[in-house]
């Protein structure tokens, strides 16, 4: 490269400075060194600018923070990277996303707690609701009934109605639940977190389904073509391996216990293999030829070619 101090000794100094400046300016165009001048000229002439768009011209950053914030604050409510939305944020409950582990954990946690008193209260409620302790005390009219919870059971006593008895048992249940929360702070906190997470997941799904326009009541029943599309798409679904992605959802609803469910999972895995194999040119014999065998017969169509004689007859001499 010839710098200004040398060039200015060869050509007029002003001209040298302008040439060096123009050289620097042109070289910041990406890839310019690979172009011929006519190619550059052809691209420059039709370039459109932000002329007469003062608000755009005045931007000092490509995307103002307020614009980015609109999306991150309104759309970014999912569980994917950067809070992006993943398929399981819309349909995850079907695959036990969040709820599966949370429910399993609930049962496990119950086994670490003494729930006998609350269990007894609930059992008593069920007995009351079943009516086995309710008897007619006066045939009336109107008939009069009494619900009598036997001694030894929570809330033992006589109540005018089953409703009254249940209400009394609810008070006992509330007290016992408060007691359990004091006795088992860790377990009850974990349970509450799990259940909040499940409810939050359901709520998120409902909200996102509305935004995505998914209305289960309006889905077309028996849409065989949709299923064909799903089957064709299985290999590509398999390549979406992000947490909460399509693969996770489809795997989680695939029925491992039968042939079809296992074939679905195998399709997903096959789809993940394909890019690696195709990338280095290894062919598999998994695709089955789709051409008809034998080929379908050709229909008898209206003749569309001239005979030699017909062509000769058309020649003008």
């Amino acid at each position: 490269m010839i710098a200004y101090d040398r060039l200015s000794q060869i050509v007029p100094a002003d001209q040298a400075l302008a040439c060096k400046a123009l050289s620097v300016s042109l070289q910041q165009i990406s890839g310019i060194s690979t172009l011929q001048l006519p190619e550059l000229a052809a691209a420059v002439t039709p370039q459109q600018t932000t002329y007469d768009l003062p608000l755009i011209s005045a931007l000092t950053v490509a995307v103002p923070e307020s614009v980015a914030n609109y999306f991150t604050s309104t759309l970014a409510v999912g569980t994917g990277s950067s809070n992006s939305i993943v398929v399981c944020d819309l349909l995850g409950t079907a695959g036990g996303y969040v709820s599966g582990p949370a429910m399993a954990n609930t049962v496990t946690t119950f086994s670490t707690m003494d729930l006998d008193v609350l269990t007894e209260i609930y059992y008593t409620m069920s007995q009351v609701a079943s009516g086995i302790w309710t008897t007619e005390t006066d045939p009336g009219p109107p008939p009069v009934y009494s619900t009598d919870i036997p001694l030894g059971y929570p809330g033992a006593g006589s109540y005018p109605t089953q409703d009254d008895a249940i209400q009394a048992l609810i008070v006992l249940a509330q007290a016992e639940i408060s007691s359990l929360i004091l006795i088992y702070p860790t377990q009850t906190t974990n349970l509450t977190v799990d259940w909040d997470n499940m409810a939050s997941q359901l709520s998120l799904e409902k909200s996102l389904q509305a935004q995505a326009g998914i209305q289960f009541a309006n889905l077309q029943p028996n849409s065989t073509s949709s299923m064909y599309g799903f089957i064709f798409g299985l290999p590509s679904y398999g390549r979406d391996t992000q947490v909460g992605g399509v693969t996770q959802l489809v795997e989680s609803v695939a029925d491992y216990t039968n042939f079809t469910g296992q074939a679905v999972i195998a399709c997903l895995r096959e789809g993940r293999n394909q890019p690696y194999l195709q990338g280095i040119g290894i062919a598999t014999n998994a695709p089955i030829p789709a051409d008809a065998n034998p080929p379908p017969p050709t229909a008898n169509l209206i003749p569309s070619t001239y005979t030699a004689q017909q062509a000769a007859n058309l020649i003008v001499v």
Partner: protein
Amino acid sequence: MTTSYLTALQLDASPGLLQNTGLAANLELTTAISAYNNTALISPYLVTLANANVAGLSNATISTLESLASNSCPALADSLPTGYATLSVGTTLFTGLLSSTAASYMGSGDLTKFVQALNQAQSYADQTSIFINTAVNSQTYLADTFTGMNDMITGGITQVNLATEAFGTDLTNLGQLINLNALDDFGSPLGLIQQIYSVTGAIPSVSILFVAVGIPVDVVLNLTNPAVSVTDSIQRLMYTAMTQITGQALNQILSVMGVTTAGITTMADLLNPVKLFPNSFESLTVTTKFGNRGIYVNSSGSVNQNLLTQLPQYVVRTIA
């Protein structure tokens, strides 16, 4: 007609799927819900709710049962945690909601509904992810190198000249005069002659004048060599010679190089940006550490002398 293929595994999966088997609500979830509902604690509670109407329980009582512990520890009464206004449960309580939701998603026996919903969900997730990720990346993309929306949408062309149409016209009129792969030598007599010779080969009239101004013959004969190096003093002589190349000799060069720019009167003009860009030199700019700066300061072609301190120093001074 587009040719599509099915793999053996896709075909294997198809009959079951088309008969609504092979996919179902997650087994871990349904098993866990069943286990929970069958616990000694929850089972009788569900029985109570199931018999609520037969038992003549009031709506208020049923409602209380459905929300028992909802604001403390909902797992102890299968209730919906408080704070989720868009959700509601019935007498099958929260686990009933989970079960019915999962079943609904799976199409309630019609798997084609599930795949329709999946398709819509995936489409929505894909679209929104592009917006979200782009918005997030936009705050760090380009860092502090953004110089303006014009530069961004024109690939930096407006950093050279905002008057794209006029600049483009000037560039078009220059034919093949500038070697964009040797811009470091733009403006030097050697760079110009090498570009001309790369297109035309040596031009006798030019060689004669070069010799006439004192350039050694061996140097002149070697100028067609793209790797040739000549001293600055010889380049100065080349420039002097170029100021004398006019008329027919100049027209021959302009013609061969496809130059149609008006006002070129000597070969030396081909080294002067004011002459090369008659329609757009006034708006030529260069990006410096202080921002975009004009190369010329007026219509008479006075050069912006501030550039001596604003351009990168390796451009201004030869690095030893």
